[in-house]
């Protein structure tokens, strides 16, 4: 059975499976970093986010070495991802489909996305060699909460995460996670698992309702994040942003404002893809978390009153 690799967790994997493909998130097929670089490898500009950079390499490796029945579906949500699709389509003609994603969620946007999904289905079935399957054999992102979300913990906002390493790091530092807002989060995955393929219009509407990611309308995103923060009841917020990510850059400003409105300590860190808990990053997160504990400790202190030796006024 041929694989249909995909770049975005928002894609309805049931659509890929129904067309006879095994859906595989491309983030699960990253190139081994120890593998020597090839001179003729596809190159992207260094001012490109690590996610896109890694996916270009992963796609080139999987498509070049796999059967020609395999394909790749790129959700062209941001400029960098759209250009990734362009590059791979030029390199692997007939094997790549770029799905345009609207920003807003209005009826025009729903109609537009429904048309895009219809085109995708036509393209998939037109080149498929397998028979319709269930999505049970899919390989989605594997990020999960180390322990269930805990109110009072840290709320993490991030772009795509390769795995749960960042959440594990917080656990190692003795802090619970109150929620994860990421396109690879289990919350997103679970919400999408229930999206049935009734008709393209309702599918598009549902995808736009669920997938309120940083590239979407600021107003929608603000409402979405408000709801998530209020439900998660966190004690602080960390934004794990990938460098050279435009939607992430503007989203981080929005999240900082929401944290400030709630009086929550906020930290923005730059992370790579795949995630690596480097020394400086670990130290920054540790210092941020410790500063909160320190504040709490200071509040709890029974300070002696000024003026008398025994602390009595």
């Amino acid at each position: 059975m041929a694989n249909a690799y995909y770049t975005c967790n928002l894609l309805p994997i049931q659509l890929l499976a129904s067309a006879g493909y095994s859906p595989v998130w491309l983030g699960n097929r990253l190139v081994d970093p120890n593998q020597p670089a090839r001179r003729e490898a596809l190159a992207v500009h260094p001012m490109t986010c690590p996610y896109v950079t890694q996916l270009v390499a992963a796609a080139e490796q999987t498509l070049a070495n796999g059967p020609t029945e395999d394909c790749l579906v790129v959700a062209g949500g941001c400029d960098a991802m759209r250009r990734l699709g362009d590059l791979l389509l030029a390199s692997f003609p007939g094997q790549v489909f770029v799905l345009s994603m609207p920003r807003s969620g209005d009826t025009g946007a729903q109609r537009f996305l429904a048309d895009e999904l219809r085109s995708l289905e036509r393209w998939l079935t037109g080149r498929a060699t397998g028979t319709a399957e269930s999505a049970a054999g899919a390989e989605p992102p594997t990020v999960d909460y180390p322990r269930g979300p805990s109110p009072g913990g840290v709320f993490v906002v991030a772009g795509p995460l390769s795995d749960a390493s960042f959440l594990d790091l917080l656990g190692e530092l003795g802090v619970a996670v109150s929620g994860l807002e990421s396109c690879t989060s289990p919350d997103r995955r679970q919400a999408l698992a229930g999206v049935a393929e009734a008709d393209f219009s309702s599918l598009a509407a549902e995808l736009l309702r669920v997938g309120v990611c940083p590239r979407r309308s600021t107003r929608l995103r603000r409402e979405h994040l408000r709801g998530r923060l209020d439900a998660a009841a966190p004690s602080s917020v960390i934004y794990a942003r990938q460098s050279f990510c435009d939607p992430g850059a503007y989203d981080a400003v929005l999240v900082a404002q929401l944290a400030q409105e709630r009086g929550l300590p906020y930290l923005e860190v730059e992370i790579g893809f795949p995630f690596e808990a480097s020394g400086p990053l670990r130290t920054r997160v540790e210092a941020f978390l410790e500063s909160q504990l320190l504040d709490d400790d200071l509040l709890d202190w029974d300070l002696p009153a000024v003026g008398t030796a025994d602390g009595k006024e």
Partner: protein
Amino acid sequence: MPGMADVTANSLSAALIRGAFLAQTRWKAMQARTARRYMELHALSASLDLFKPGAVVPWVSYLFPTELLASYGLTPMIPEIGSATLTGSDLREAVEAAAARMPLARDVCSYHRIALAAVENNMLPAPSMCLGTTPLCLGKECLLEMLAVKHGVPFRDIRVPLPPDDGEASPAVVADVADQLRALHDDIGRWTGRKPDLGKAMRLSNRASAAWGRVMSDRLAGRLEMNGRKTFATVFLGQLLWGTEAGAKDFERLLTERGRGDLMAPTPLNGGKQRRLLWLHTVPHHDKELFNLLEQKNAYVVFEEMGQMHLEIIDPDNPFPGLARRLTDHTLWGTSTRRAQLNVALAKRLKVDGAIHFNHWGCRHGLGSVPVVRDAFVEAGIPFLAIDGDALARGGPSQEKSLQQMESFLELV
């Protein structure tokens, strides 16, 4: 000599200085009598009005059809043009310092970063509405909507699907975009309480388009050789004037030798053969070193990709389909393959000696297409160079590297 800081304040003395500053610019224009000088005057004059109390300030994206605003007598505030103007003025240091203090990541497009810092620090007027288009990039949509949310003003974006690599966008797509433009035009009237005259704006825009179209076809046919860098700077500023009487007259000035006198191609050094280059993407606005080097090496930019704007005449009685088509099939929009095909064809038609792509800082749309564009030029046997830089920078760490790359490239071609 007053500076930008003096003319953008909201006081009687600022108004007087503004008047004196404009008079001086007008005097320069009257002396030169060139399209470029008059366009500077009219763009400056219209933009300074945006600082007046009670002014309606529509922040719009670079490709937004500004005739929809001219219909209501409104001048657009285009972030890219605002940023380029401020960083070329005596407010440069202040706006750069403000941008450095902002929480927004430094790796986003500098046009947008500077524009945000400027509006947050009263160096550009706050928006009354923010209007975007899907082309060209997502970053400016994020910027415009963020500003709209912050200032509590309306935001609209015109959703424009990607055109096919070959041929035109379908009539259904054009009709959908036209409907969005029509609804937005009505909304602008509702928000401002003004009466529209889109027919007049379109007739004026068409006059400008007819003139600009003639200049461009003469350039493409080799009948007219203009300096692409200076021409781009003029058209860039002209974005503020489409659909206005001043804009129509200024573009028509390009039809006379005197009117385009300061935009012509340089004369060859020592009578030698000049190398003619195609420039892709934006240009460094304030950094003259690269272009000085070109002159020293007897080379110049004969044509600029971004000058290909507003070349169509649009039916003034039913303008929305034409305005929509201008967006859906814009040469700067579409896939990397489309961009590569269009530019290779352009390079062949112009018989250029090479092409330069300017990788503007933080522009994922532009630099993301470079691998495909480069391959297409290499396949066509046309020398191609991509240089990194910041369109708003003066000097800086990347300049030296770019100069070396350019020097080697010119030796090659």
